[in-house]
């Protein structure tokens, strides 16, 4: 059995009613899962002896702007057992934009989630240190949201006073 089929089968057995969609585009497997189950699924994928997705490569988000389910949180994880990449996605339906943090499963997701929070304003519940990553403290906005103007909002970022 291919590792990919094993992943799909195991996930479907374990989370039959929480898996919304499984797509396999150009050998790139991605699984859309209900956001309530994200930590449970992450824990399963990491600790299952046949799968061993021990590495979280990236956490990011997509702002769909006009869709009703505005944000999608995307996780890229990796299994060293079979050199296999898997993408997990979870839709956020409504405000407040928040999802459970996966740092309890992959500690390496800490800064990725901070970056996603900084850029999209998605709150990761139970994150140990949810501060901004790139933008200065006290900045009010989230720059990668589609409703944020490219040139920024005047006076939202302070500059030192001019002398002379």
């Amino acid at each position, binding site marked *: 059995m291919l590792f990919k089929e094993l992943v799909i089968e195991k996930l479907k057995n374990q989370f039959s009613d929480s898996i919304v969609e499984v797509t396999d585009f150009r050998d790139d497997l991605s699984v859309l899962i209900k956001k309530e189950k994200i930590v449970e699924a992450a824990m399963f994928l990491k600790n299952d002896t046949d799968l061993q997705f021990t590495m979280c490569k990236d956490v990011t988000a997509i702002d769909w702007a006009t869709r009703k389910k505005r944000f999608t949180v995307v996780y890229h994880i990796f299994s060293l057992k079979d050199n296999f990449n898997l993408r997990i996605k979870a839709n956020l339906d409504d405000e407040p934009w928040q999802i459970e943090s996966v740092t309890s499963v992959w500690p390496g997701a800490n800064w990725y989630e901070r970056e996603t929070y900084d850029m999209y304003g998605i709150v990761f519940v139970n994150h140990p240190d949810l501060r901004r990553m790139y*933008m200065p403290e006290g900045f009010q906005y989230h720059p990668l949201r589609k409703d944020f*103007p490219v040139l920024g909002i005047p006076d939202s970022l302070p500059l*030192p006073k001019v*002398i002379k």
Partner: protein
Amino acid sequence: MGLEAKLNKDGFITTTIDAIIAWARKSSVWPMPMGISCCAIEMISAADPKYDLARFGSEVMRFTPRQCDLMIVAGTVTYKMAQVVRRIYDQMPEPKWVIAMGACTSSGGMYRSYNVVQGIDQFLPVDVYTAGCPPRPENLINAVMTIQQKISKTKARDFQDIPLLDLETAKN
């Protein structure tokens, strides 16, 4: 030729204090290399043997602002970095000069974006702007020479009564 020829018979020269101080000042402008991004590479090239900024007395790049006269801001200044650039500038002793090296520092350059300061003259008194992305070392040397011309026109009284730093600004 030179000063020795004039002085071989216990000679003396007359000049003004302003002229001799300005001459001394412009002949040893010590730059503070504020190399923030790619322009820094060209700034390093300007100091190397091929272009040799030492010909103009500016080869002594000091990595502490307290020993410098000239700040070469070489690279993209983000809003977050602006606070740091200004804090370093404030630590330089008077009199001091600033070169905005390259398109990013002069105008934001290709980064027309929310995170990049669109020209460092929004928070620093810039004396010379340098065009280029990044500018060639010759261009930076030209900027240093322009600074030298500017210094040679200064008088001692220009630097009197400079107000003490506003403590609020120093604290940022």
